[in-house]
């Protein structure tokens, strides 16, 4: 097997960098543990003492509200001390390298780094250079991976659908620029979803995407036929160079999720979106706010899933 820096020599998960290559048992351990963390919100004191005395650094080199905040809440519910670094105003802009930044934070006794970076592989780079006992979680690197988003989406699917092995799941929109889509495809296939479809225009699908074990559709109406789960993706205009799209209006006409297109899916299908949503570009407000939407529960589940990942890593 190829070198996997996530797994230590004792076979335990040390870092969470990508879903690719993780066995089903590891994914299920996270999902089961997250389910147990859901009950912490029922407590008067919404905290458990697992990570008391641990210092967790949120290193966000790219803007994020939801992911950074839910990581912060998750860490605080585990009783850890959280430091948020606003990188845009930090020494990186003064020319310090990524590894020097991390070395300095390690000297401040960091126990865990949550890393978001526009460069694919940034979290891997950090994980390869930190000392033993320090854990790294990838909170999104370029177009590569966003493993905790994929895990919280799997948690959401399991919550509403009870399992994975009889589902048809469609991922719709800008697959090309989406680290979420890549992580999700790996998670869905590892967990035994028999049919994963990707739906999008040729210009927004990665070349040879079918090699990941998915069925490709360019026609959304056909692609949504009888699906149980619809995962909409954000159109990432900030990552696009050149003319991949005619216009946002054209995109909505073909690939925006409207009530009419949603009607092609199963009547009990759920609609998901990792956020932030572009209403009127990839999703109609009537769907985003409709009864099949589970977009806000996804955010809530994200806290429990991140608590699970952090507490599993810190204990290994």
């Amino acid at each position: 097997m190829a070198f996997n820096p996530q797994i230590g020599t004792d076979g335990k998960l040390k870092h969470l960098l990508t879903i690719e290559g993780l066995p089903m048992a590891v994914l299920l351990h996270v999902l089961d543990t997250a389910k147990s963390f859901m009950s912490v919100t029922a407590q008067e004191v919404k905290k458990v003492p697992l990570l008391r005395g641990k210092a967790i650094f949120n290193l966000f080199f790219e803007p994020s509200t939801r992911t950074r905040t839910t990581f912060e809440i998750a860490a605080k519910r585990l009783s850890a001390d959280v430091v948020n670094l606003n990188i845009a105003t930090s020494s990186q802009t003064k020319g310090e390298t990524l590894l020097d930044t991390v070395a300095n934070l390690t000297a401040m006794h960091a126990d865990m780094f949550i890393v978001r970076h526009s460069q694919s592989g940034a979290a891997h780079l950090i994980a390869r250079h930190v000392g033993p006992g320090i854990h790294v979680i990838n909170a999104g690197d370029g177009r590569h991976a966003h493993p905790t988003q994929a895990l919280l989406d799997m948690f959401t699917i399991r919550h509403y659908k009870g399992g994975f092995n009889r589902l048809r799941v469609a991922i719709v929109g800008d697959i090309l620029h989406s680290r979420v889509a890549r992580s999700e495809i790996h998670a869905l296939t590892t967990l035994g979803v028999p049919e994963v479809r990707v739906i999008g225009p040729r210009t927004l699908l990665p070349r040879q995407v079918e090699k990941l074990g998915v069925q490709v559709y360019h026609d959304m109406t056909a692609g949504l036929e009888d699906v149980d789960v619809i995962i909409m993706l954000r159109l990432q205009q900030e990552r696009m160079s050149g003319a991949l799209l005619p216009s946002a209006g054209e995109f909505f006409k073909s690939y925006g999720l409207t009530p009419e297109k949603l009607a092609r899916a199963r009547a009990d299908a759920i609609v998901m979106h990792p956020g932030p949503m572009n209403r009127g570009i990839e999703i109609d407000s009537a769907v985003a706010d409709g009864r099949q939407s589970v977009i806000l529960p996804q955010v809530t589940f994200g806290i429990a899933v991140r608590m699970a990942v952090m507490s599993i890593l810190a204990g290994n």
Partner: protein
Amino acid sequence: MIPPDAERLLAALAEQIRRDLKPGTAMVGIYTGGVWLAQRLHQMFGLATPMGTIDVAFYRDDYRKTGLRTGVKPSDIPFPVEDADIVLVDDVLYTGRTIRAAMNEIFDYGRPRSIRLAALVDRGGRQLPICPQYVGAQVQVEGDELIELQRDQSGRLALAVTRRGA
């Protein structure tokens, strides 16, 4: 050693608890064996307060040594803990560390008026100042022996003794 009959011990335990029951008494079982026992006792007494369950995994003091195990169950305390009289139920009382963890967890839900501890068997070996109010039996178990509660398909409870590492 030959373990005592769990069903007989449960009946003895129930008699002790019954004397102290009040109308609002709540019951919380600790996974896994304590939950089985609490279910039986809760039904036997016909308690009005719904039963609670606790998995102490998130409150254990050996997390730094052993990490988080798989199969953690969600804790569920479906009654207001504030001012409640709680009977906490476990199968085997040993070092007292599980009870310490369970009490810390209960206090994160509120401030109970009282917590009383019921254990099916007490094998001694306490490492913390924890003392049960209700005990089915005191048992002598060698240090390298493990005594645990088992439940068969019909719901019948039995104690089993195994040697560690055997």
